């Protein structure tokens, strides 16, 4: 069954604006990961945040994790047209040693 639920399902912004995507999940996790997928391609790992971490940065990416609310957000600052892609959150639990992907947010960045 699907663990992560993401919103919005689609997001359209202008180049230079910030994009925020949210992910909610249901069960306990060891880490939460964000992946990017360009149209017709495989997924690319962006960032991993552990369950004992609250915030993590990588370049223009900022990820937060709130385990009490079972939610995470991905912020892309100063977006570029090249950021246009689908973004998936994925939760990992060592109990089942399984990563479960959410349905994804489709981001469109207009030049």
């Amino acid at each position, binding site marked *: 069954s*699907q663990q*992560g639920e993401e919103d919005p399902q689609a997001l359209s912004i202008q180049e230079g604006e910030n994009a925020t995507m949210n992910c909610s999940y249901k069960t306990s996790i*060891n*880490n939460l*990961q964000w*992946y990017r997928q360009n149209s*017709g*391609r*495989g*997924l*690319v*790992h962006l960032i*991993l945040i*552990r369950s004992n971490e609250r915030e993590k940065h990588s370049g223009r990416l900022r990820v937060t994790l709130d385990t009490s609310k079972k939610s995470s957000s991905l912020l892309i600052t100063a977006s570029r047209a090249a950021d246009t892609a689908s973004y*998936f959150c*994925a939760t*990992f639990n*060592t109990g089942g*040693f*399984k*990563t*479960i*992907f*959410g*349905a*994804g947010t*489709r981001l469109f960045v207009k030049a």
Partner: protein
Amino acid sequence: DAMVIQNPRYQVTQFGKPVTLSCSQTLNHNVMYWYQQKSSQAPKLLFHYYDKDFNNEADTPDNFQSRRPNTSFCFLDIRSPGLGDAAMYLCATSDRDREEDEQFFGPGTRLTVL
């Protein structure tokens, strides 16, 4: 560069005609995964190998089989493809010893069933 390779990138088969998709990796990872992804949906895990141990997902149809002859290669066999099996098939790898399951994906094989 270390990578995950999938061949072919596009595969066309006929209804009911067996098809095999291949995946190879140079990362020397001990886990290899096969996912099915339909348009605008999340990748759905079909099964994975941890070394030689095969782990099938409960809802994966019997029509889907897999082989991992060695660390580097893994195959997805669809014995009798139906129209509903048309999808992108993604192979991924991870190093279970790291216990974080960061996955490295290949570019995918898009399967068309006529």
